[in-house]
């Protein structure tokens, strides 16, 4: 199958792109999820705005003291190969490396993966545990940058809170003594994750993100204080993880790969393994 008809624009300025988005155009960066859905005619946008010629949107990863900014057009491959990311955020590099395949990583963008908001999207889960911030712009606010913490970003199955705003970059806080681990469970390696987790442990606290057990990638916020207060090496960890998941109000995904109970069991197992990995020094790229 092939995509339905749409109006196409390829603006050169961010302002034009924001106008297009305000008028309902769907942004196209790498298109590795969007074009697939358009081919299957699951989604039929009437208008597409191609972001690839906009001078203000970058594929660069910008490293400044205290903050790393991932551009709107940064690909998974660029992220996975970036030396600062590999040194300071190796779990992100791992999540990017395990995403899709070479061809998809060459073309798909990190921000696009987050905005597609699949509940099992590697980058969504890994960035959710990293307390990333999404910088957005909108023609309705004259392009003023509005920051959305990623914990507030996901609205439902493949839905975000963006509405008529355009996501233009991702910011990550650089903090020393941070370790993290991303683990995904898929049938075959690099396949669609049935469940994926990311644990990031900082001086300020521990973040636990899970994909695959709810319509959205979620944080296990009830578990995080336990890890902060009682440390990662915790005798009751297995029980606490299971308990937290059991007490979360989840809206499971219906597919052929297993019951909600199975996926929740998987999530608990992977979280435990990711925490063990963090105790062990975390992922190394």
């Amino acid at each position: 199958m092939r995509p339905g008809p749409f109006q196409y624009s390829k603006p050169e300025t961010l302002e034009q792109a924001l106008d297009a988005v305000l008028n309902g155009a769907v942004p196209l960066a790498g298109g590795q999820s969007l074009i697939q859905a358009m081919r299957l005619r699951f989604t039929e946008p009437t208008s597409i705005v191609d972001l690839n010629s906009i001078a203000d949107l970058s594929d660069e990863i910008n490293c400044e003291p205290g903050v790393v900014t991932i551009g709107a057009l940064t690909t998974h491959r660029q992220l996975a190969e970036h030396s600062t990311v590999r040194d300071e955020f190796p779990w992100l590099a791992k999540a990017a490396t395990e995403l899709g395949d070479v061809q998809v990583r060459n073309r798909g963008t990190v921000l696009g993966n987050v905005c597609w908001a699949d509940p099992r999207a590697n980058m969504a889960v890994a960035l959710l545990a990293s307390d990333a911030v999404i910088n957005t712009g909108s023609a309705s606010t004259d392009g003023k940058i509005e920051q959305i913490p990623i914990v507030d970003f996901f609205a439902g199955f493949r839905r975000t809170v963006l509405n008529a705003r355009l996501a233009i970059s991702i910011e990550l806080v650089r903090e020393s003594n941070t370790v993290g681990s991303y683990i995904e469970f898929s049938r075959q390696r690099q396949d669609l994750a049935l469940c994926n987790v990311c644990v990031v442990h900082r001086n300020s606290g521990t973040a636990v993100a899970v994909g695959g057990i709810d319509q959205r990638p979620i944080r296990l916020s009830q578990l995080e204080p336990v890890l902060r207060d009682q440390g990662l090496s915790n005798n009751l960890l297995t029980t606490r993880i299971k308990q937290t998941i059991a007490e979360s109000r989840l809206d499971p995904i219906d597919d052929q790969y297993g019951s909600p109970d199975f996926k929740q069991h998987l999530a608990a197992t992977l979280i435990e393994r990711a925490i063990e990995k963090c105790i062990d020094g975390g992922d190394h790229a």
Partner: protein
Amino acid sequence: MPEPNETNGGRNTWPIQISVNGIRVARNVEPRMLLIDFLRTQAQLSGPRIGCEEGACGACTVELNGCTIKSCLTLAVQADGGSVTTIEGVAENDTLSKVQKAFVECHAVQCGYCTSGMIMSARAFLDSVGSADFSDDDVRQALSGNYCRCTGYNNIIQAVKVAAGKETAPAHLDADSTPDDSWIGQPVVRREDSRLVRGGGRYTDNYGGAEDLHLVIVRSQRAHAKIKAIDTTAAKAAPGVALVLTGKEALAHWQPIAPTTDMLDLNLPRKHAIAHDKVIYYGEPVAIVVATDPYLAEDAAQLVVVDYEDLPVNTDIRTAVDVAADNSGLLYPQWGSNVQFESPFEIGDVDAKFAAADLVVDEEIVSHRIGAMPMETRMVHADFDRADQRLVIRASTQVPHQMRMYMSKVFGIPETHIQVVVGDVGGGFGAKLSVDTELIPALAAILLGRPVKWFESRSEWMFAGPAARDYKIRARAAFDSNGKLLACESDVLADMGCDGAERGAGLGMPLNGAIYMVGAYLVDTYRSRVRCVVTNKPPYNAYRGYGKDLANFMIERVLDQAADRLEIDPVEIRRTNLLTNYPHHLCTGPIIENGSLREALDKIVDAMDLDELRREQANALQTGRYIGICVVPYIEPSGGAFPGSAFQNYESVTVRVAADGSVLVMTGIQNIGQGIETAYAQVTADLLGCHMSDVSVVWGDTTAIPFGSGTFSSRGAMYAVGAIVDAAEKIKTRLLLGAAVLLECSVEELEIKNSVVKSNKSDSSCTLAELAFACYVQPGAEIILNNADAPLLEAHGTYRHPQVNWKFDEKGRAQFYPSHPGGAAAAMVEVDPETGRVDVLKIWMVADHGVILNPLILSGQTKGGVVQQIGATIYESFEYDTDGIPYARTMKDYGMPTVWAAPPIHLEHLVTKSPATSVGAKGGGEDGCIATTTVLMGAVEDALRPFGVKVMDGQLTPARIRALVADAQAE
């Protein structure tokens, strides 16, 4: 900001230019045009191919601005101003690149459909690593975005290492070399690969042009419903539309689908290829739209509105089998039940043996629904010449002559006026043995008098393509205390989907399973019952293994249980019961002509170093790792021939030596990637004494080749080769007679070798080319072939297997499979009891196919079959919700095995020459798909022995394995 052009059709287009392999291609294109379509239709390339629509298969892989991408997940406008390299741009000055050469030498190509994309990815990987060292997993990481359905990936990984200079290619021979002795048995690299690694190939989608119309099938959104009305008004008014037709409107123009099998008292649906009254599965065709391009055809198809009245949906075979005669849940009310065919069999006093047994094993076994999933879907290019009343069909099928026959039956056009042309086929595995949906584009071409193309989309295949397996079984066996098998019983419920005989050729699979459950063992008391039941799912077609997989796991799973309960070593219980003397007459009818099952079992145990593996297993358990091992024998009945079908017990060829000494072999066996261009040339070269490079093999065109049943049941090495022997002997006699005249000597003193005819008494000699020219022209046949039985160097040869027997005895027994290759298979797996993941660590096989024509090709097919069945067992599944709607919409959803799924495979051969063929080959190619599921089930059970679980469901997904463990822990 750049602006689009407006065209008069109201479609906005963009001017773009892309440098394709160094040539600038500038066009105005619709923004929705995919780069793959631009490359194929605008840049006129054939290497990048469409295998899916979700960017999973990678057959469309090209390089854009130095990076590999999937051209089916990229819009052409996104590549504007860029530079694209495709497979066609890889060879320099026509010289194959290192990686292309390595793919040929390592036999990393079978059907070739994935090869273009695979080579692009391999090339990018080799460029990126440069001279650095790399591991097999690095290669897997680089190739995981490219599916291959044929090779099982091992040879591809090897080819990458060979291209990098890390390994040398396996021993091989080129077709233009000269072997010391015989071509048969030599690892000759395939001649077809030279075009396939360059992006060439004669796949159906490579044909057609701007004048083609494109057909899209509107498919049912219900699994079981009456069609109340179809509104096509909006679709007819849509741009570019040439024809919209509903099933009801089509009725006047054709007959129901011609069944692939019509025998005994089996029930046939007698349905048309487009539903007109009710639909019986989700995805069944209900209408068609034909338009000037595929995009417009899809747009219009969305505008067809169908009004349904729902009927009860049957997705569960146990419910479907009991649906009463008056119930609206019957798929075909005229049958009075949902049973398409029932086959009972009994021999010996089964009940007495069970009553007297020391041990009775009684198990419920399940095997889930999977499918062949070749890389190339089905497709047809149909053209009808109204003036001449001739129908010309290009199609992707395994059976060109059957297709011609069935087109003729359905449309009432004489077979003389139908030409079916099949080039390269991008994989078949049994799924392209029927003619059902292929009728639809033919109908459109007949009605329109214009060429019509239908290229089945992957989602159509997912919804409506042929499926296989899907059994619920009760298997019982009686043993004495020494593990001796006393009697067996099987009761098989087989889910045909909506039909296993008319739209597909799958109905024989469960029947085979029942016949061959006792196949490898000494047991003469047996009862079986097979019920083929219809449900609201897509049709059931043949798939590699064809029920011998079922036979294998029924008996072997039961034997493992017996071994466990009697505390006998699992290999020993096989040794106790394996048949000893050949020929062996099975109690179900067939005669196993000869073989080496016991030797194969001994050899595989040695090759594995089983005792050492058992020690490793025990050590691993100490560290919390669950490793399991399983070894079983198997038989691979091949060359099947079935009454009431066009799957017949003969094949014919025509062999022609031309005036220049070149040799043409014309065969009805269809090339689907199994290497017939090479293997048949090897055989012919040996028989005629010519150079292999002088022999060409032609297939697929019903006007050019002699009648043949086609490609199925691993028959080519017996049937086509047997026919070549027959034809070549006739021609060789004439050549020798002619040479005796030409060289003025006696026939007895002549021999032909390496295309030279020589006297062993004098220095006289001539080349085959000189002799052939003398026969044809100078002085001509009246002089040179005056003594011969015929004055030409062309002969028709036939082969009929002597071991087929269709005379049913009083017990209803016959023999459909004349030949029985066999061997032993083993697996070692590791299971994670927490997540349920099964990792296959290694597969072993010892196989006996009789005389091997070409070890490269045979091994390649076996390994490919192994990985297919690993996929079918651990990853793949067609599943339906209670409304009969399929879950899997993409190959990725379905679980196609990637390069990560391919473990190391240790493969050895034994050779027991077939008594029935002069070359001695028995056929092969399916064995990887016979015992792999069995050994995986057994190995997982073995790994989880500490938990005490039984593995009786052949679907080893994480969720199911985890459930087994969790249930065991809860007890």
